[in-house]
């Protein structure tokens, strides 16, 4: 699920693919899209908690990647570079959404009363449907909590918790200092703690669900 579980062989080939893609190899560019699409989509999904927005962000990010990969100086910085594009695309989408004032279906689902059932996603397979439902419901609830963070804190939390970034890599991707990243993460986790408490998500609740 995280970058650690990302296919190792593919990661090994990323540098070689980036080198070829920089030289204009369309096949290598396509392979890079295949390798990184899921990560960028999931970054967008966790940022917006919305499938359409995540798809939009992923597509725009990879279009920009294919168009400007020739300008990438250091192939070793590809990951940070790609996430810089993704972060900027997310910010742009966020501005567009705030201008449009639209309400996504997911957010409407999350505004339902606590006792109303929510439809589960169709991507996970568990043996027990009830357990699967509960876990999906908890995941959606946590996702909604994550969305309550400010965009800056959300970026850092997602990169650190889900994308397996080091503090230095996040600082590179966001073009800020490492201390700023750590500070944003600290206050982001602190804010999330309060949001979880407000929604009655405690250690007991989590233990019961699992």
């Amino acid at each position, binding site marked *: 699920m*995280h970058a650690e579980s990302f296919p190792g062989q593919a990661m090994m080939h990323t540098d070689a693919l980036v080198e070829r893609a920089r030289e204009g190899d369309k096949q290598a560019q396509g392979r890079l*899209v295949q390798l990184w699409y899921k990560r960028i989509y999931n970054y967008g999904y966790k940022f917006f908690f919305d499938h359409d927005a995540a798809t939009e962000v992923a597509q725009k990010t990879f279009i920009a990647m294919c168009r400007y990969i020739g300008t990438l100086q250091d192939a070793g910085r590809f990951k940070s570079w790609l996430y810089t594009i993704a972060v900027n695309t997310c910010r742009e989408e966020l501005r567009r959404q705030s201008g449009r004032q639209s309400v996504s279906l997911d957010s409407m689902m999350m505004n339902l009363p606590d006792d109303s059932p929510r439809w589960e996603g169709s991507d996970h397979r568990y043996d027990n449907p009830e357990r699967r439902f509960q876990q999906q419901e908890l995941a959606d609830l*946590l996702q909604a909590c994550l969305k309550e963070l400010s965009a800056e804190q959300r970026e850092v939390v997602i990169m650190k*918790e*889900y994308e397996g970034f080091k*503090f230095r890599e996040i600082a590179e991707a966001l073009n800020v200092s490492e201390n700023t990243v750590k500070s944003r993460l*600290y206050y982001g986790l602190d804010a999330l703690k309060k949001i979880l408490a407000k929604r009655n998500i405690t250690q007991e609740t989590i233990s019961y669900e699992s």
Partner: protein
Amino acid sequence: MNHKPDEALLIAYLYGELQGDEKTAVEQYLREHPDVYQRLQEMNFVRESLQRIADKEVIAPPIVLEENRSVTFWNTGYMRMITGIAASLALLMLVARFTGLTIQAGNGTMTIGFASSFTVPDTKQKAAAALTSEEVQQMINQSMAQNNALLQVNWQDSQQQLDASIRNNLAEFSDARMRSLTKQVSNASEEQIRAFAMTLQAENARMIKDYLALNANDQRAYMEELLVDFARYLEQQHRSDLQMLQARLTNLEEENDEFRYETGQILASIINTVEPISTDIKN
């Protein structure tokens, strides 16, 4: 640890990215400050909770990019826009040339037409030649005064003619003529009244005669109807009496037959009873 570790140091410790002296110092500080340790524990719980959000499985869609083309000066957006406007104007001029479109502007007017040339009437000169409002008002007043005078003359003529006619008529009607006319009218009225009264009497007599005749006919018809009805009633009554008598006779006959039958049976039983006794007596 003498100094308080900042958020950056604490978060690095939380993610296990501190080593050596820094790590030891933070651990020492946390032992001395359980409230900060508790806060870090809570943050760790938040991290554990966040791990419950799983990744979505997606398939990368094909991303098609157009080939990079070298952008020449003539192919830039501005040049394309300017060229487009120029081409539109050229086309417009060409169409105007063939259709004979003429556009004229001047003297505060603009005219568009398909004629080769045409003149615009000079409205300014006309405006200069036009009368002022005071002159127009004066002309209207003059015209009204003339009209009024004409009407006055016509009215006086009519009035004089009417007076003359009335005077003539009155002169013709003298007293003697009036008297003879009155007498004629009164004579005529007397004869007419008499004739009218006679006509009325004749009509009344005829009406009374008709009424009596009609009345007699009605009474006769009514009486006939009454007699017929009475005769029917009597006949009906007679028929029902006969039916009743017939029914009673039938009843009597039936009762009689029944009585005869019963008597026969009684007699038979008596005979049956008496016959063995008489036989016994004979024996």
